[in-house]
C-alpha cells in the first residue's frame, strides 16, 4: 500500500512530467512550423518580409514596356523563374516572369527580370517615367533566409529531446500501468469509459470533417486577402490561391470573392464573361481565382481591397486519419470494455425468458408500427404529392377521356404541346385527345411505376397511343434525390421488389454495389411506408378546401392545363419554382452559341461510337412495351433532341424489343432541332423548339398511321 503523502508526491511528479512533455511537444511543433515557413520564404512561395531596392533610370521600351538596370542581377530569370518581385507604390505587382511580348502588348503590371535588366509595365498602362509612382525590386529578406539552418537545428534537437523524454516516460508508465492493471476497477471504469467517450468524440469529428471535406456542411470558413494578383485579359485578373482549390463539384464553387468585405455578385461565371463583361464576375479554377471588379476599374489602382472567402481547406489526410483513429479507438474500447464486462456478463447472464421478453417487445413495437402505419394509409387520403399526382388526377378527372398520352421526363413536360399535336392530327382528319404526362427528373424505373398507375386509372381502356420517353436507369440514388417527394412517392412495395429483382439480375454490378443500391432504395421505401406527413397533409386539406391538387399545381400544369409548360415561358411567371440549376444552365448556354456547336459536335461523335446497352435497360423497355400492349394501346418510344446518346433505344429497336422509335437526338438527322435559337439549354428546347418537336412527332406519327403500321 502507498500512503497518502507518497501518493500525492507521485501524482505531483507525474503531472510535472506530463506538463514538461506537453511543453516540449509545443516547442518542437513551433520550431517545425518555423522551419517550414523559413523554407517557404526562401523559395519565394510565401515570403515573410522583403528586402527592397529602388528601380532607377527607367527608359521607354517597345509597346507598354519600360527597361531599367536590374539592381540585383542574381535575381535574373533567364535560367529559372525568379523569386524577385516588383513593387509599385509598395504594392506587389502580380505579373512576374511574364514574356517580353506580353509586357510589350498587354502591360498591366507584367514584368521580367532578365540578365542585367528589368523589363516592366505599370499596373494601368501609364508611363512609369511620368506617373509619379515609385518602383522597387524586392527579394525574400535575406536575414530570414539565414535563419533556415538555425531553425532546422533547433527543430531536430527538440524532436530528439522529446523522443528521449517520451521513451523515459514510457518506462515510468510501465510501472504505473502495472499498478493500474492490479486495480481492475481503474482499467474497467476509467480506461474503458474514456475510450468509449474518445471513440464517440473521434467519430463525431470524423463525420464533421467528412461533411466539411465533401462540402455538404462547411464548418470553418477562411478569408484570405488577395495581395498578389495579375492581369489576365480584358477585365479579368487572376491570383494564385495557396493550397486552396475551390472550383467545387458540378461547377458551383462554395467560395466567394470579397471587394472591401462585400461578396461580388456573379459567382461561377464563364471565363470569357469575366474577361469581356467583368462587373464583379468571378470564378474559381483549380488553385486560381479569376475575378473582375464591380465597376471594371483596375484593382491595382482603385483602392479597393480584395479577398477570397471559402471553406477552410482541410488537409487531405485529415479525414482518413480521423477514420483510422476512430476505428482503432473504437476497437480498443470494445476490447477493454468487453474484457472488463465479460466477468459480469458471465455471472449475471440474462435468462432465456428475459431475452425472449425483450425480443417479443421489440417485435411488438415493429408490428404495432407496421399495422398502425397500414391502417392510417388506408384511412387517410393520399397526400398532395408532386406533379405526377397532379397530372394523374387531371388525367382521371378529364370530362373527355384522353386517348393519347406522352409519358416521360422534362423533355416531355417542357417540350410536347398536346394542343399542337391534336391540331396537327386534326388537319389530317385524325381525331385525338392528348395529354402531357411528363414529370421533371423522371427516370426509367419511375416511368414504369407511373405507367402502371396510369394504366390502372384508365379503367375504360380509352388510351390508344402511349408515347414514352425514358431516361437511363438511375442505379445509384444520390443523397439529394434519396428522400425527395418524387422519389419516395413511387417507392411502394411492388416497385421495391421489382427494383431488387432488377438489381440482382444485373451482371454489371458487383455484390457490394447491389447491396448498397438496394439499401438506398429500401430507405426511400421506408420513408414512404412511415407515412411521414400524410396525416398533416390531410388536415391541411381539410382545413382549407382550396388547397387541392388543381389549385396547388395550376401554375405548373401549363396555361392550358394539359400538362405542357415550356421552360422559357414558365421562368417568366412570378410563381415559377424552377430549380436554380435550370436558370444557371440557361445562362451558361446563352453565353456562347459556339459552346453549343461544340456540344452538338461531341454528340455526333458520341453517337458514332456506340457501346453495348445494359441488358436490364433492354428488359425494362420490353416490359414497358408489353404493359402498354396488354392494355390494348400502342407504345411509341421517342428520344427528344437532348444531347445524350441513347444506344439502348436504338439497340432495342434493332433487336425488336420495341417496335416504334422516333429519334430526334441525332444532330445530323434533325438539324432544325439542334439550332441554337430553338433551345433553352443543352438538354431542353424553348417554346419555339417545343412546338417544332411536337410537329415533327405528329408528322411521323401521321405517316405511320397512314401507312397502316399503327392502327387508328
Amino acid at each position: 500500500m502507498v500512503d497518502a503523502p507518497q501518493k500525492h508526491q507521485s501524482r505531483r511528479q507525474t503531472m510535472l512530467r506530463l506538463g514538461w512533455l506537453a511543453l516540449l511537444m509545443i516547442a518542437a511543433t513551433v520550431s517545425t512550423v518555423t522551419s517550414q515557413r523559413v523554407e517557404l520564404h526562401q523559395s519565394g512561395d510565401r515570403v515573410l518580409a522583403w528586402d527592397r531596392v529602388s528601380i532607377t533610370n527607367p527608359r521607354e521600351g517597345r509597346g507598354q514596356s519600360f527597361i531599367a538596370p536590374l539592381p540585383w542581377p542574381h535575381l535574373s530569370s533567364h535560367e529559372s523563374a525568379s523569386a524577385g518581385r516588383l513593387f509599385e507604390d509598395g504594392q506587389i505587382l502580380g505579373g512576374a516572369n511574364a514574356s517580353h511580348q506580353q509586357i510589350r502588348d498587354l502591360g498591366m503590371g507584367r514584368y521580367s527580370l532578365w540578365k542585367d535588366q528589368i523589363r516592366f509595365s505599370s499596373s494601368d498602362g501609364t508611363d512609369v517615367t511620368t506617373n509619379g509612382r515609385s518602383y522597387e525590386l524586392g527579394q525574400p529578406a535575406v536575414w530570414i533566409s539565414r535563419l533556415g539552418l538555425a531553425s532546422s537545428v533547433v527543430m531536430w534537437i527538440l524532436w530528439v529531446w522529446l523522443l528521449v523524454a517520451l521513451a523515459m516516460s514510457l518506462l515510468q508508465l510501465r510501472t504505473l500501468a502495472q499498478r493500474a492493471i492490479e486495480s481492475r476497477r481503474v482499467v474497467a471504469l476509467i480506461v474503458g469509459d474514456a475510450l468509449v467517450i474518445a471513440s464517440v468524440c473521434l467519430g463525431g469529428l470524423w463525420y464533421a470533417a467528412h461533411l466539411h471535406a465533401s462540402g455538404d456542411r462547411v464548418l470553418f470558413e477562411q478569408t484570405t486577402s488577395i495581395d498578389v494578383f495579375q492581369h489576365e485579359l480584358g477585365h479579368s485578373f487572376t491570383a494564385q490561391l495557396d493550397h486552396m482549390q475551390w472550383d467545387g463539384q458540378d461547377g458551383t464553387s462554395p467560395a466567394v470573392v470579397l471587394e472591401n468585405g462585400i461578396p461580388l455578385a456573379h459567382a461561377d461565371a464563364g471565363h470569357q464573361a469575366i474577361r469581356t463583361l467583368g462587373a464583379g464576375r468571378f470564378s474559381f479554377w483549380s488553385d486560381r481565382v479569376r475575378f473582375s471588379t464591380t465597376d471594371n476599374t483596375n484593382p491595382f489602382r482603385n483602392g479597393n481591397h480584395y479577398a477570397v472567402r471559402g471553406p477552410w481547406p482541410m488537409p487531405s489526410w485529415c479525414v482518413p486519419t480521423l477514420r483510422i483513429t476512430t476505428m482503432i479507438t473504437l476497437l480498443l474500447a470494445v476490447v477493454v470494455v468487453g474484457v472488463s464486462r465479460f466477468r459480469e456478463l458471465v455471472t449475471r447472464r440474462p435468462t432465456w425468458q428475459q431475452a425472449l421478453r425483450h425480443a417479443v417487445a421489440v417485435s411488438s413495437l415493429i408490428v404495432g408500427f407496421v399495422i398502425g402505419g397500414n391502417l392510417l394509409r388506408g384511412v387517410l387520403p393520399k397526400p398532395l404529392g408532386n406533379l405526377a399526382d397532379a397530372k394523374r388526377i387531371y388525367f382521371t378527372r378529364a370530362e373527355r377521356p384522353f386517348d393519347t398520352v406522352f409519358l416521360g421526363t422534362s423533355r416531355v413536360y417542357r417540350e410536347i404541346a398536346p394542343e399542337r399535336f391534336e391540331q396537327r392530327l386534326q388537319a389530317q382528319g385524325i381525331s385525338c385527345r392528348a395529354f402531357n404526362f411528363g414529370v421533371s427528373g423522371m427516370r426509367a424505373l419511375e416511368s414504369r411505376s407511373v405507367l402502371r398507375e396510369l394504366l390502372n386509372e384508365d379503367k375504360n381502356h380509352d388510351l390508344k397511343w402511349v408515347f414514352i420517353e425514358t431516361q437511363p436507369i438511375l442505379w445509384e440514388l444520390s443523397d439529394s434525390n434519396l428522400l425527395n417527394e418524387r422519389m419516395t412517392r413511387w417507392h411502394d412495395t411492388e416497385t421495391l421488389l421489382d427494383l431488387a429483382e432488377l438489381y440482382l439480375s444485373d451482371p454489371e454490378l458487383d455484390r457490394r454495389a447491389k447491396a448498397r443500391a438496394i439499401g438506398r432504395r429500401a430507405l426511400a421505401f421506408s420513408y414512404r411506408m412511415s407515412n411521414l406527413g400524410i396525416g398533416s397533409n390531410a388536415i391541411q386539406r381539410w382545413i382549407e378546401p382550396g388547397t387541392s391538387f388543381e389549385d396547388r399545381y395550376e401554375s405548373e400544369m401549363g396555361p392550358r392545363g394539359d400538362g405542357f409548360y415550356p421552360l422559357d415561358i414558365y421562368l417568366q411567371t412570378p410563381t415559377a419554382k424552377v430549380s436554380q440549376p435550370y436558370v444557371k444552365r440557361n445562362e451558361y448556354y446563352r453565353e456562347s452559341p459556339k459552346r453549343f456547336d461544340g456540344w452538338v459536335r461531341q454528340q455526333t461523335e458520341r453517337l458514332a461510337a456506340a457501346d453495348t446497352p445494359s441488358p436490364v435497360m433492354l428488359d425494362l423497355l420490353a416490359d414497358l412495351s408489353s404493359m402498354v400492349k396488354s392494355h390494348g394501346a400502342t407504345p411509341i418510344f421517342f428520344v427528344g433532341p437532348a444531347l445524350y446518346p441513347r444506344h439502348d433505344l436504338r439497340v432495342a429497336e434493332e433487336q425488336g424489343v420495341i417496335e416504334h422509335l422516333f429519334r430526334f437526338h441525332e444532330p445530323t438527322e434533325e438539324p432544325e432541332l439542334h439550332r441554337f435559337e430553338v433551345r433553352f439549354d443543352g438538354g431542353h428546347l424553348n417554346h419555339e423548339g417545343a412546338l417544332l418537336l411536337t410537329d415533327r412527332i405528329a408528322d411521323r406519327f401521321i405517316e405511320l398511321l397512314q401507312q397502316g403500321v399503327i392502327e387508328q
Partner: protein
Amino acid sequence: MIFTEARFLVFFAIAFGVHWMMRWHTGRKLWLLLCSYAFYAAWDWRFLSLIAASTLVDYVVGIRLGALTTEQTRARRVWLFISLLFNLGLLGVFKYYHFFMDSAVTILNNLGIGAEPSTLQIILPVGISFYTFQTMSYSLDIYFGCLKPTRNLLDLALFVGFFPQLVAGPIVRAREFLPQIRVPRLFSRIDVRACVVLFLIGFFKKACVSDNIAPIVDTYFADPASFDVLSAWLAVLFYGAQIYCDFSGYSDIAIASAGLLGYNLGDNFAFPYFASSIQDFWHRWHISLSSWLRDYLYIPLGGSRGSTLYRYRNLMLTMLLGGLWHGAAWRFVIWGGLHGLALIVHREWTARAPEAFRMHVAWRGTGVLITAIWVGLAWIFFRAPSLDAALTTAGAYAFGRSSGTETLPVSLIALLMFILLLHAIAYHRVFRPAWRGAPTWMFAGGVGIGVAIITAFAATEAAPFIYFQF
C-alpha cells in the same frame, strides 16, 4: 438541433446508449457534458463560450460565497453582485441591447433630440434566458443559505449545460439538480414506461399539433386587419393551443429525455387551460419560471408582506419583468402587465367574495372560461408581430370590432374541439391505467402504433420551438 428532428433522435440514442454503457460516474458526467456542449454547438459553437463563462463565474462566486460567514454581509453582497451583474449583463447585452437602444432612440426622437438607431447587430444566443437564470439561482441559493457550493466544476457545468433543458427549460434549481448529479444513477430506478409515454406525448404535441396549426396562426397574424372577428377568436384560441403544445411538448420531451438518463427535472406544466383562476394558471403554466420569479424576485421584493398597495406593486413588477424575460419588446411587457392586472383583480375578488360561492362548481367552471379568455387576450400581445397588429387583434377579440372581410375556415372550430377533446382525455389520464398495467409486449405494440400515428401526423415543415427565442 430540434427535439423533433431525426438527428436529435440519433443523437439521443447515442447519448443514452453510451451513458448507460459506462460505469464510471465521472465518465458519465463528462460524457453528458460533452453531449450537452455538442448539442448546443449544433446551433452555434461560438456561444458555448458564454455558457462556459457563466458557469465559471458562478463557480468562483459560489466558492467565495461559501467561504464567507453570514456576518460578512458586505463581502457576500459584493460576490452576489458580481454573479448577478455578469449574468444579467449577458442578458442585457445579448437580449436587451436592441430593445433598450431602440426605446431610448424613440424617446429621444420624440423629445426632439435627434438620435440615430444603432447599427450594431447582436445575435440572440439560444437559451440564454434559461441558463443565466439557472446559474443565478445557484448563486442566489448559496447566498440565501439554501445550498452549499459545489467544488466540482464538472457537476456545476453539467447542471448549467445539461442538454435536455439547456435551450428552453424547464429552469432547474441547483438545489434540486446538484444532489442528483452527485449520486450515481441506476437504470433500474428509471420509470421507462412513463418516460417513453411522456416522450411520445411531447413529440405529438409539438410535431402533430403545434406545427400543424402554426400556419393557421401565421396566416392570421400576417395581416390581422383583413380578417373578421370570428377569425380573430379562432386565431387567438389556436395560438393558445399552439404555444401550449409547443412549449409543453418541448418540456415533456426534455423531462422524458432527462428521465431516461436518470435525472428528474420536475414538472413544468399541469393543464394550465383548466385553471379556474389566473393564480391557478400560474401554478400550472411554466411552473419552473413562475416559481423562480416567486422565489428570486417576488419574495425578495417583499412578497405578500406590507400594505396592499405594496403587495400589488410587487406582483405587478414581477409580472412585468416576467413579461420582459420572454422577449425584448414592449408587447411582452404588456403581456406581463395584463397577467399582473388579472392577478391583482383576482386577489381582490378572493378577499371579497364568499368562499362558498368561490368554491362552487358552477363558479369554478365559469372561472375556467374567464381565465382562458383573459389568457387568450394576453396571448395576442405575445404573438402579434407588432403593437399595431396586437391592438387590431385585441379590438376584434375583446370588443368585436373589425373591418376585415377575410375569414379563416370555419372547419377550424371542429379542429379546435378535437384538440380540446384530446386535452381533456390527457387531463383525465384515461389511458394511464392501460399502459401502466399492460404486459410489455402490449405496451411495446402500443408504442409502435403511437410512433406510426406521430410520423403520419407530423408536419413535414417543422418549425423551431417558440421558446427558443426566449
